[in-house]
């Protein structure tokens, strides 16, 4: 991607959690920025703060100190309603545990963010079917999550994340519950989306398979950035 527009800027970010009567520092002075269209990942040992950082970028949590500016808005200063709106319109989430809504069909799960956007029924239907086409699940539109394999569920989750054509997709360990074949499958899907729609992807992962696809790898250790490498290769 040629565009150099910055979509995420993180400055001197500190995040602490109360632990008994002491404080635990999960993120300690993070400085990072991501341009539109990046396909990058946070790696590092368990407990290094990957999920915490992703949650802050996703406006689900707020910084203790410093700031995280996402698509022009400072996360800690957004009202609840504005944050919800930002997540609804511009940020897609993919979780390790898929987190599909169990009583909804595939179609209804993917449709959910569009319902919140109050999109018309006709447009919703078209967008959902396009998204399902992207992940290759048009024939499972009526299935419930319980009737599908883990790989299929994660593809539904990806369709749900991209159906609204978000600016940013945040994926926390998206392959941790998948076998190798399914992992490659969904990674290829995401890569394809990244290239054709210019969506910015940010992963948090331990998985070597995922790391192989990343174009930028940020290593976190003990809540700090230990290394930040860009790979020019494909």
């Amino acid at each position: 991607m040629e565009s150099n527009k910055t979509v995420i800027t993180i400055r001197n970010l500190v995040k602490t959690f109360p632990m008994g009567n002491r404080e635990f520092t999960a993120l300690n002075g993070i400085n990072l920025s991501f341009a539109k269209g990046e396909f990058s990942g946070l790696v590092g040992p368990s407990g290094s703060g990957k999920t915490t950082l992703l949650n802050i970028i996703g406006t689900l949590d707020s910084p203790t100190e410093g700031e995280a500016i996402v698509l022009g808005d400072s996360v800690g200063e957004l009202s609840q309603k504005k944050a919800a709106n930002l997540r609804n319109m511009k940020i897609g989430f993919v979780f390790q545990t898929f987190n599909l809504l169990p009583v909804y069909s595939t179609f209804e799960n993917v449709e959910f963010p569009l319902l919140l956007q109050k999109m018309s029924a006709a447009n919703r239907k078209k967008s959902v079917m396009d998204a399902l086409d992207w992940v290759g699940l048009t024939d499972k539109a009526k299935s419930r999550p319980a009737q599908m394999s883990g790989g299929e569920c994660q593809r539904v989750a990806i369709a749900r994340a991209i159906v609204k054509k978000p600016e940013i997709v945040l994926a926390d360990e998206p392959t941790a519950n998948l076998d190798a074949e399914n992992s490659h499958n969904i990674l290829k899907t995401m890569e394809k989306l990244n290239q054709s729609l210019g969506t910015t992807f940010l992963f948090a992962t331990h998985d070597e398979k995922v790391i192989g696809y990343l174009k930028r790898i940020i290593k976190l250790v003990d809540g700090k950035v230990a290394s930040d490498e860009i790979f020019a290769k494909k």
Partner: protein
Amino acid sequence: MITFKLAFRNLVGAGLRTWLNVFVLSLSYVVIIYMNGMLDGWNVQAKSDMMNWDTGQGQLWQKNYDPSDPFTLQDSFDPIPADFNTMIGEGKIAPVLVTMASFYPEGRIQSILLKGIPENQKVIELPTASMTADSSSIPGLVGKRMAEANKIKKGDVITIRWRDRNGTFDAADVLITAIFETNVPTVDGGQIWIPLSRLQKMMQLPGEATLFIRGKSDWPSFGKDQWIVKDLKSLTADIDQVIKAKSVSTSILYLILLLLAMLAIFDTQVLSIFRRQREIGTQIALGMTRGQVVRLFTLEGAMNGVLAALLAAVYGIPFLASQAKYGIPMPKASNSMGMAIAEKIFPVYSVGLVVVTICFVMLTALVVSYIPARRIAKMNPTEAIKGKIQ
């Protein structure tokens, strides 16, 4: 609107659990309406029975007459006003003379009321026309309750003793010419009806009466100093009282039922808020505000009330309608309740009753759903997504 749609999807998706709650809740609709309908039906029926058998369309009482105090009877008569005679002749007004007497069933002595009423009266259903006998004995009527309590059969001769207006004791035989069946105890228990003319003669009170019962026509003119008008409302006030007392006790019953239903919803909602925390976290991640999620869960619980109303309509309307058509058989024991109870009660359902019941149940469902849903607002979405909250 979208919350509504989502709530509906969630409920239908939850399947059996939803239907169990909905079923229990629908029962409370039907039972509340049924019980109240029965009480209303009873009220209507008791009043109409009472009008048909006792009060007519209204009464006129001699000023001293007090049915709750038999000792007033010796002063409770006055000459029948002259203007009444035509209508009495036509049976449109029934003069009644009441006095205390005693009789001796199976060797016991028992106080009763002796009531005189014209044979030709048409204002109450008492079969007065069957009071016929030759002049040697006095024809008399008793109700079934009175007959059963004292082993009286049709054709029996009963010796009665009374005091006339001068306080002199006298005795005579009454031939029971008919036993009538009524739901109205006030014309049945502890009393014998005989022709008015005979009682007047026995009491040495020719042309006098204690009270008058009228049909549809108004009272002719009468002396306001001797007679007091009793309208239907005051004559049937006892029924309202009894029904009110009954409705308090039935209310307790259906409150318990409603409480059970609400507990089921409350329980389901509390459970689901913990079990579904990952779902809640996900919904927030997908762009719902906490307020929206709280509303969604509240609505979801409250929609139990809506679905229950629909279900209640499905089986409740045919059930309630058939009860209204064929009546509810009442146990014999209820005869001793001290007020008119028919063998069958036809429930009456008013629009107000149905509307109030529906609003009441819905409101309660809304409240018990809202209380657990409030907790969602306090949830940390990042924890909820992982399903970690205990």
